[in-house]
Structure formats: structure tokens, C-alpha cells
């Protein structure tokens, strides 16, 4: 790593956080017209943000992007796919990429189940629902949603089908579910799509998609490589609403059971 690169990243980052500093200062001193509490602490905080973001972006180039691409390249390598099997006519069927799907599922599930933002939301939802929704059940629902989403996204890249067919069908399903799901869960379900894709997960998953599109024969990186994150944000909406519907149904059956 060169010092000029570090300096350049630092300058770029300073430019990135400048708008929010200007905006906060303008509202604090011009609109609200109140002095800021703990100004020193706030300044130290913004310095941490600047240094932290710079280090993160430098590490991203060195570790997270290469990791995603590396896994994609290795898992789609014909030598790995055909280890032990005799290659027939050089055509790879989409089912031969099953390790790619297993990897996509594992990455989606494991990163989501450990996501701190999700834990906070799950606990809040459990309190609001009055016990019908369990925090753990909700977390598993979201994690399954992300995992299935990324797996289906990987399948789409391998087969090269157009992304908007999947997304549009997904939207239709979300809309249908919205009419049947308990009303209180709807905003939470809609938000859970965006919350789950964390800062660490996004680069790894994006690199996985681009790597897949690069190495699977016949795919265009620009057309096929993106879209995994879109899948990962769409499916949790469905799985959260489905979970709420199932738990409501079970609570309903419990109540209507005749006393023995």
C-alpha cells in the first residue's frame, strides 16, 4: 500500500462526509440557533468517522472484494466442478454449480443471523406484537429470506435470465402478501429488506456476483453481475410477512381450541 493512495483515500473521504457536516452545522446554528452540546466530543467523533471510513475503504480493496471474487472463481472453475466426474461434451448444466448455491446460501444466512441491527429490530417487534412474534423466529425468518434471495440470485447469474422478471414477480408476491399479513408487521417487514444488508456483507456479496458473471461462460459482467443485493433485500419482506402470518394463524388456532 502506498502512502499516496492512503492520502488520496483520506481526501476523498473528507469530501464524502463534508455534506453532512455542512448540513448539521447549518441547521444547528442557522435554523435552530442553539449552541451545540459537547462540541469537542462531536469534533472527535467526526475525526473518528473520517479515519475509520478511510481505513475501511483501504481494507475493502485488500480483503473483502478479493475474497468474494476468489470464491466465485474457484467454485466455478471447471477443474473443481469436474473433479471425479468425467466431462461430457464440455457443456456445464446449471445444476453442476451446486456448490455455488450452497456457498451463497451459507453466506446469506450466517451474515444475517449475526447482524446487530436485526437483533435490535427483532426484540422491538417481539415487544410490540405482545408475544405472538418471537425474536428468534423473526431473525431466522429474515436470515432465511436473505439466504434464499442470494441463492436464487446466484442461480439467475448462472442461467443468465433477465433480473427484472424475478424482481417483478417478487413485487407481485409482496403486494399480495401485504393484503393478508397482520397490519402492524407491514412497516417492519418493508424496512427489514433494507436493514439486513450490512456494510460488510454488501461488498462480499457484490464481488461474488461479479466474479460469477466473469467466470460462468456466456455471461456479461455488466448485465448479469449485479442484482444479488436486490434479491437479498426483496426476500426478507416476504419471509417476515410469511412468518407473521404463520404465527398469527397458530395463535388463532391455540385460542379457538376447546378447553379440555
Amino acid at each position: 500500500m502506498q502512502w499516496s493512495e492512503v492520502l488520496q483515500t483520506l481526501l476523498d473521504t473528507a469530501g464524502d462526509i463534508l455534506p453532512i457536516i455542512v448540513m448539521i452545522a447549518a441547521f444547528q446554528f442557522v435554523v435552530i440557533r442553539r449552541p451545540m452540546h459537547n462540541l469537542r466530543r462531536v469534533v472527535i467523533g467526526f475525526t473518528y468517522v473520517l479515519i475509520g471510513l478511510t481505513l475501511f475503504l483501504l481494507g475493502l480493496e485488500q480483503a473483502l472484494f478479493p475474497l468474494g471474487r476468489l470464491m466465485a472463481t474457484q467454485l466455478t472453475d471447471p477443474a473443481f466442478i469436474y473433479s471425479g466426474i468425467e466431462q461430457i461434451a464440455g457443456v456445464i448444466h446449471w445444476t453442476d454449480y451446486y456448490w455455488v448455491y450452497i456457498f451463497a446460501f451459507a453466506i446469506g444466512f450466517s451474515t444475517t443471523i449475526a447482524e446487530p441491527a436485526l437483533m435490535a429490530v427483532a426484540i422491538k417487534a417481539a415487544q410490540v406484537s405482545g408475544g405472538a412474534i418471537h425474536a428468534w423466529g423473526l431473525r431466522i425468518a429474515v436470515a432465511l429470506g436473505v439466504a434464499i434471495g442470494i441463492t436464487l440470485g446466484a442461480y439467475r447469474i448462472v442461467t443468465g435470465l433477465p433480473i427484472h422478471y424475478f424482481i417483478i414477480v417478487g413485487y407481485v408476491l409482496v403486494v399480495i402478501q401485504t393484503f393478508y399479513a397482520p397490519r402492524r408487521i407491514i412497516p417492519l417487514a418493508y424496512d427489514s429488506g433494507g436493514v439486513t444488508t450490512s456494510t460488510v456483507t454488501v461488498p462480499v456479496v457484490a464481488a461474488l456476483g461479479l466474479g460469477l458473471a466473469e467466470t460462468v461462460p456466456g455471461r456479461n459482467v455488466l448485465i448479469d453481475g449485479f442484482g444479488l443485493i436486490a434479491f437479498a433485500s426483496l426476500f426478507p419482506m416476504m419471509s417476515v410477512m410469511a412468518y407473521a402470518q404463520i404465527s398469527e394463524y397458530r395463535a388463532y388456532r391455540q385460542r379457538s381450541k376447546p378447553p379440555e
Partner: protein
Amino acid sequence: MGCCAAGCACRTAFLKSKSFALLNTSLKALARPLIGSLRDLLPVIAVVVFFQLIVLQQPLPNLAQLLSGVALVVLGLTLFIQGLEMGLFPVGESLAHALARKGSLFWLLIFAFSLGFGTTIAEPALIAVAEEASEVAAEAGAIANSQSVQEAYADGLRLTVAFAVGFAILIGVIRIVNGWPMHWMIMGGYVLVVIITSFAPREIIGIAYDSGGVTTSTITVPLVTALGVGLASSIRGRSPMIDGFGLIAFASVTPIIFVMIFGMVVH
């Protein structure tokens, strides 16, 4: 004996001293986000190592570079989150509450827009994906393969997304103030996405759909949620649960529409 007592007294004095307390609290304050960012990263590492050693049965290439990169990511994320909690979050939240109480719709809307815009420009995941998208677009020949054109493309993408998120938060705040039901507006957004998709160039569709999920992470979510919940609880007749959430959902739909329009202009 006397010497030991003096030593003890000296140690107690140090333990009681202000500088030790400051050091102690700042170390403790850093420990929590450090554990948090390790926990974020650990599942990724565990899955990759499992596949590398058990399934692929190959050593990791460039191990030293990977390890130093991971260390940078953990350290960077830790400082970043700690800095957010010290600076941006308390100030942003107090501003959101103050403006919600102030009752001036004009300033509230300007605040909503600039909050969405400013936080999205600084969002690390978006910086990463925009850069990657510009490289891929240049390699595929959709834009000229030069440093300055690539940078302009990445910046254009980020500005578009930031503008879209600002717009989304603005619309979301108007919704909370008027108490409109959310799902009709989201569905309207979906219909727009579907219509514009049929006009957009194929090269931008994947990036556009992804940008919806990318925008809403570390910085944007806590501040926007604070604005929504603060607003819903300061307006009579609004429930924080039903009206307070949902700003994020808007912010995940509008970038898709705006980025596709950006694609139509650029490609």
C-alpha cells in the same frame, strides 16, 4: 512496609485520577464497537475458510494481504461506528427532535431531504459498489476506459442515489405528517419501477436494483429511523410503530427509479 504503602497510595491516586478514568472510558467505549465489527465479519470469514479448506481443499492465496486487509476493515469499521455514536448520531437525533417540535413544515422538509442526501453520500457500502460498477462499466465498454470518466461515472451514480434517498425521505415525511397509508405509496413506487424497467438500457438494470438495497445501511438507518419515530411521536394521532417506520422502505425504492433514469441519460 512504608514503601509499599506509598506505592499503594500512589496506585490508588492514579486509579482515581481523571486521566486514568478518561483513558479507561475511551478504551471501554472502543471495545463494544470492536466486538460489533468483529461479529459482523466473523460469519463471512468462517464460511470462506470452511469452503476453502473443506470443500475446495486449497490454501488461501495472498494470505498476508488478506489478513492485513481484514485488520484494516475491522479497525476502520470500529472507529467509524464509535465516531458516529459520539458525533453524528446524538447531534442528528437532537436536531430531528427539535425540528419535529418546531412545527415549521418548510424547514422540516429541507432537513429531511438534506439528511437523506448527506448520509447517503457518506455511506461506505455505496462508495464501494459505485466504484465497482464504474470499473465494470469501463471494462465492458459502456463508458470510456479512463480514470477521469470512471470517477465521473461513480460520482454521478452516488449523487443520483443520494438525491433519490433525499427525495424518498422528503416524501416519507409528508406521508407521516398527513398520515397516508404506506403500502399504497410503496406499490405506486413498484409500478413506476416496472414501467421504467421496460425503457431502461439492460446494462443499468442490475446496478439500479442493487442500489435500492445498498443505500440503507450504517449511517442512514439510525438517523432516518430517529427522524421518523421522533416525528410520529410528536404529531398527535400518529403511532410510532405504524407511522414511524417505513422511511427506509421508501429509501429502498426511489434509488431504483432514479438510477434507471441516470442510466438512460448516460448509456
